[in-house]
């Protein structure tokens, strides 16, 4: 039997239900892993050691007495981590910025609340690029998160901590957030399943805002089935978030199936860039071929050149950032604005410029019009295909120190995910292989609110891989079968 912290969410759930393990044992196992790995990994900003043990004890009590069942509390006793931009009442929330170094949340994010209500044990808050500004965690004011596959490499970002913590089995699963790539990209660098739901599928209330029209909280897990389970729990309408969707939330786990016969999957030629790291395009095409063998139909498609989405995302995101960071003055909470790091200052400056009088039309307004073009581009493509497959990132995990000071690294690294984020679509990263020992991810992009289809296709791929072929490795070389139980 694997070590407890190496269990998938579904396996842990099954064993807890069967009484084979306790939450205290499971949580302890995670805390031990954290203690062992953290000095090198830096995936966490804050570990709620005592609170987690208390929650674990309470979970065990309630599970054993039958007060909690896995129907009413599907995450009963399961240790999860939250990216440090999710407010956790009574606990520190920093968004990895010194501005909020001493900030104790006075309320829970809706996602946090939902996890607690489901019985989860919140083990700690994971590292990120400060304010989610980045794709590496090198802009974190608390130091970068390293990659579980190679300690000299980065975890990616901005949800680098959540990706690394899941990949290294410090936790059973984690929650991240994506503005453009912040779930998918670190998932690809760390070899885990990273699910970016449709904008509005999961409530943003209580998540430190970066790009208000883009931010999408989502699960980061070891398997697709885990992702389906977590998504059902955190998704749903929130009266406190006026942009959250009222569409009912399916039971994604129950709806999970491997049938992709007849599914039309588009391969956008512009996304298989010649400038990408050699080997990435091939691995992703092989994954596509695997899906074809399972019955899917591959179609070559064309999308607007990704270079436009870099520029568009830069303008819109930085404009919203400059506005969303205006509240941090140190008067009601936190420190004053001199505590902002370089990256935050850069983004605030461009955003302020893009919104200023005389430039608004040329930048922000133009940006919103281009965004409309991107949306229409995808709408056109989805008339002829059901899903899109492409590489998630143009490179595998980069070396520690290689991205610091690059003034537009974040936006450049996310070239392949920005368009779908701007259009509000859903996407998932699935590990499809290793290049020089470092994970490569493919992304499946789906139309609005087609998470089930995206999950199913990912599941079909995941279930068809043979662990002996080493296509689905984890940092601990432990294979997850990811079977639905």
């Amino acid at each position, binding site marked *: 039997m694997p070590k407890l912290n190496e269990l998938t969410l579904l396996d842990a759930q099954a064993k807890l239900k069967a009484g084979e393990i306790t939450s205290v044992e499971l949580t302890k196992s995670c805390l031990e892993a954290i203690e062992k790995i953290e000095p090198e990994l830096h995936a966490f900003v804050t570990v709620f050691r005592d609170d987690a043990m208390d929650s674990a004890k309470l979970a065990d009590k309630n599970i054993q007495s039958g007060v909690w069942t896995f129907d009413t509390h599907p995450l009963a006793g399961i240790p999860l981590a939250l990216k440090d931009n999710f407010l956790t009442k009574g606990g520190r929330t920093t968004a990895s910025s010194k501005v909020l170094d001493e900030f104790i949340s006075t309320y829970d994010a809706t996602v946090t609340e939902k996890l607690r209500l489901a019985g989860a044990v919140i083990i700690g808050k994971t590292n990120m690029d400060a304010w989610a500004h980045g794709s590496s965690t090198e802009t974190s004011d608390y130091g970068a998160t390293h990659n579980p596959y190679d300690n000299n490499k980065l975890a990616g970002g901005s949800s680098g901590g959540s990706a690394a913590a899941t990949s290294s089995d410090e936790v059973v699963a984690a929650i991240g957030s994506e503005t453009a790539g912040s779930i998918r990209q670190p998932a690809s660098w760390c070899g885990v399943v990273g699910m970016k739901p449709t904008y509005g599928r999961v409530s943003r209330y209580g998540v430190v805002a970066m790009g208000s029209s883009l931010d999408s909280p989502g699960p980061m897990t070891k398997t697709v089935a885990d992702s389906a389970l977590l998504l059902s729990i955190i998704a749903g309408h929130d009266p406190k978030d006026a942009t959250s969707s009222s569409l009912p939330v399916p039971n994604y786990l129950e709806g999970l199936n491997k049938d992709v016969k007849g599914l039309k999957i588009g391969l956008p030629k512009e996304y298989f860039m010649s400038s990408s790291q050699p080997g990435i395009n091939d691995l992703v095409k092989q994954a596509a071929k695997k899906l074809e063998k399972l019955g899917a139909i591959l179609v070559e498609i064309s999308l607007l050149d990704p270079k436009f989405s870099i520029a568009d995302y830069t303008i819109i995101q930085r404009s919203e950032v400059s506005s969303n960071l205006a509240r941090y003055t140190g008067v009601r909470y936190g420190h004053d604005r001199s505590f902002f790091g370089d990256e935050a200052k850069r983004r605030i400056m461009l955003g302020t410029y893009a*919104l200023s009088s005389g430039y608004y039309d040329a930048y922000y307004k133009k940006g919103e019009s281009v965004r409309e073009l991107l949306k229409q581009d995808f709408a056109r493509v989805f008339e002829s295909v059901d899903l899109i497959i492409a590489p998630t990132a143009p490179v595998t995990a980069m070396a520690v120190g290689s991205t610091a000071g690059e003034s537009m690294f974040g936006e450049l690294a996310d070239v392949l995910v920005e368009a779908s984020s701007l259009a509000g679509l859903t996407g998932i990263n699935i590990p499809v292989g290793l290049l020089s020992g470092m994970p490569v991810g493919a992304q499946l992009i789906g139309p609005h609110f087609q998470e089930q289809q995206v999950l199913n296709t990912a599941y079909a791929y995941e279930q068809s891989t043979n662990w002996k072929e080493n296509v689905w490795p984890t940092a601990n070389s432990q294979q997850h079968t990811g079977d639905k139980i």
Partner: protein
Amino acid sequence: MIDTVSRKPLAARYSLICGAEIHVELKTKSKMFCGCKNDPFHADKPNIYTCPVCLGMPGALPVPNKQAIEDCILIGLALGCKIAKVSKFDRKHYFYPDLPKGYQISQYDEPFCFGGSVDTSFGPVRITRVHMEEDTAKLHHDSVDGKRVSLIDFNRSSVPLVEIVTEPDIHSPEQAKEFLKKVRDIIRTLGVSDCDMEKGSMRLEANISLALVGNDPRVVPPLPNYKVEVKNINSFRYFANSLTTEFTRHSEILDKGETPVQETRGYRSDINSTVSQRVKEEAADYRYFPDPDIPPIVISPDWVKAIATRLPELPSSKIDSLIALGIADSAAKIIVTNSGMLEFITQVKTLNPKYVQSAAKDIVNKKVDFVSMTPTDYIKSLESKSAGKITDEAILKPMIKQILKDNPSVVADYKAGKQNALGFFVGAVMRASSGKADAGITNTLLKDLLN
């Protein structure tokens, strides 16, 4: 123009051009973008009606109060405005400690209401727009440990605020007063705000400039190229006064061939003058953009119709209705400004119209507490004053006959033409009946029996 304080005429070669900006705090139960209680004026402690949203905490999100929006549209309708088909909220950015998010959620280019008009006896004042925004926190200054500080109370933060902006159609202090009173009365009648200047639920700002008057008074003067903003106006009277003092001040500057500085000035009632607050070198750049946290608002004709059913009769036609009931003009004018009084009279009319006039008199003379007494009880009290009255002639006649018999000399006086003898007999009947004899019937019977 006449100086309202000195009553002396002012320079006839300039005309006054003034626009007003009125802010009205709505009295909804909860705040504009969150469920905190909307009651900043009566809060007994600072910072007790706050939450992540109105404190501008990380991760908080605004959700608009539907009632507030409908109240705003209602005000727009009552001021003759057109209602937008599509509207939105925008972020207006500036840094100040009373603005927790570093931006105010307001409306920029798609306000809920626009293009209205309010009549005055001096001519119409056009309403440019009526829009919604959130109020700021309250700052006040103090000394703590010897240092000057500003103390901030967020109870008021994010209270719903309606902003009414007029075209520069106000040309005299008298017109200003009439206009402001009218707007206040209209809004009070709607029941959406107390419009209390002292409590701050109504705030005024003036935009003032002068222009040359052409020889032909019918020629509208061209708009000048400066504008002075006047704030800190705490009453309609002070608004009018500020127009007068600014008129004089600008005239003196313009006479010298100079242009008054474009700036913000504060009105000071102690010196009846304005004082420079800061120079507006250029318009502030608020970096407006549509608030991505709040989906746009589509206002259907059906929705506007539903809101319009709340439009009550407006004050002047209400005054006419009361006068038609026999209520004095002066009393009617007082009653229409108070929805409690008006409601009382309306109910009295429904219960028993013959008591409407006395109800009006009693309310205006504060002889009845219409807040704690119901119209039904009021009518009962009137009736019991006349209740227990002896109206039966079978009882009164013998009583009267006896009195006449006992007072032959007074009977002789009456017959000799002394009319006040009648009063003597009425008094005697009252005494004999312990005040219960019905005065009217007694009078009639006396006259019959004496003749």
